[in-house]
């Protein structure tokens, strides 16, 4: 690995991307979302996980995009990919059959058990804000072997109580989770602009694993709607390497759209 960038010569988004990409070491078939996950997965493929197969819900398996895709249905994902499938095949034979090792989900709201809302803010029948809805998220949460979440943290998004549960997370009862009989049983990790979290094996609850350099626990507490569990061996997230920063800045997001 190259030397670490010094003096926090990187943005909060950049360390969030680098930390998330490292979690893809040893993963194989990865269901990618647009935006941050897209940069994360492309970074992982170019660094620690060269065999990562990028899978897009638009029906692309094994994408090798030559430019940063503007959406999950960008034509650059098709040209040079290993396979293009109908959406039925992608969801049925790849996702539902259990071929997807890890999938990324975003959230408007997430709770301590990793339940996710992407449907409405406010009442469903008369919403304050109508959000996009599930898309593939509900079946991804249920059928991917692991789910990673990458999102910026704040009291409006890390909430004590969701307004709507679009995609199920952990239930808080490990016996119940074990009996569910589906692959996914809640997210495996959450990476934010402040730190990284895992979910406790017994509690199913989001637990702070590392703080990004310079971030305090108080800052984390101020930016979520509940008092988080903290790992006994709370660590510091390793800073992005010079090479990771070069790839992010020069290749993956030269316009700084996602990494400001």
């Amino acid at each position, binding site marked *: 690995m190259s030397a670490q960038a010094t003096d926090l010569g990187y943005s909060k988004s950049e360390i969030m991307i680098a930390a998330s990409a490292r979690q893809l070491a040893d993963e194989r078939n990865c269901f990618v979302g647009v935006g941050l996950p897209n940069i994360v997965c492309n970074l992982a493929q170019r660094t620690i996980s060269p065999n990562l197969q990028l899978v897009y*819900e638009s029906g692309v398996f094994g994408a090798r995009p030559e430019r940063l895709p503007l959406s999950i*249905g960008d*034509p650059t994902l098709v040209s040079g990919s290993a396979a293009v499938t109908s959406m039925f095949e992608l969801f049925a034979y790849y996702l539902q059959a259990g071929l997807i090792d890890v999938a990324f989900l975003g959230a408007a709201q997430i709770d301590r058990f990793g339940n996710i809302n992407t449907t409405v803010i406010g009442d469903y029948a008369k919403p304050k804000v*109508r959000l996009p*809805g599930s898309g593939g998220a*509900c079946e991804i949460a249920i059928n991917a072997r692991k789910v990673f979440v990458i999102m910026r943290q704040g009291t409006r998004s890390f909430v004590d109580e969701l307004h*709507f549960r679009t995609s*199920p997370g952990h239930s808080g009862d490990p016996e119940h989770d074990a009996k569910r009989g589906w692959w996914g049983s809640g997210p495996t990790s959450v990476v934010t602009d402040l730190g990284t979290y895992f979910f406790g094996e017994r509690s199913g609850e989001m637990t702070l694993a590392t703080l990004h350099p310079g971030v305090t626990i108080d800052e984390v507490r101020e930016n979520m709607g509940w008092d988080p569990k903290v790992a006994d061996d709370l660590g510091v997230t390793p800073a992005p390497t010079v090479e990771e920063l070069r790839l992010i800045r020069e290749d993956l997001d030269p316009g700084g759209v996602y990494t400001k």
Partner: protein
Amino acid sequence: MSGSKTTTMKDAIAELVRDGDTVAIEGFTHLICFAAGHEIIRQRRRDLTLCRMTPDVVYDQMIGAGVARKLVFSWLGNPGVGSLHAIRRRIESADPEPLEIEEYSHFGMVCRYVAGASNLPFFPIRSYYESDIPSVNPNIRAIRSPYEDDTEVYVVPPLRPDVTIVAVQRADPSGNAQIWGLLGCQKEAAFAGKRVIVVCEEVVDEAKVRRDPNRTIIPGVVVDAVVEQPFACHPSFAQGYYDRDNDFYLKWDEIAREPETLETWLREWVYDLGTHDDYIEKMGAAHWDGLKPEPMMSGEVNYGRYA
């Protein structure tokens, strides 16, 4: 030649899309037939139930123009950009009138088309467990497997649109339609539709289709009308023909924010133009040149001749 179904967009919409119909214009980011949406707006259809996995800018335009009373969908947004403001106004504030919604997940919507296309009463999937979605959509129901394992699955009902409109790269005059690149659920939606309009970038000879039959996604037997319309999908894209016009998706966010700016845009780019060819001309040749990709040809395969 016999069996030609070629017609104009104006005639296809006039003959096949009626007030009150359930209409699906499909295409997952790729091959979204904006030209058909604009013609439906121009002909002032009303009370449509619009179905689409991903209502994006074209449905925001149509719903903003008042053609629909109901929307059936799985993901509602301007992909890679943000919100659809005209649709949000109708859902959040009934402005200028309410919009009924019925929502699924992507896999649920795909399987509704599969059930419709396969003449099945429902289709089972492993989704919706412990989600709130079934609580707001009673059409999504849980059943148990009739076999020994007794697994609980959710089922979705068939979707059979009165009219399905799909864009494709090329078709022959009888409607044998070929697509490459993202396939979305064009095939499932076409087979599920009671009436089907295929809109193609170019009409080609039947012989050209028969040279590469694996690429035929929709056979002419289910197609009622074939419309040749270049750039029919702009600002969406047609693989190999033109790229997505991302600047327009960004601009739409501004245009749709206020009813007045939306109305002005509709007047300038839809109502005041007779056809999509006028739209192409108004946009200017330089614009289309800028969206053209460099060629990247597929290799050829040998089908063999078995005479």
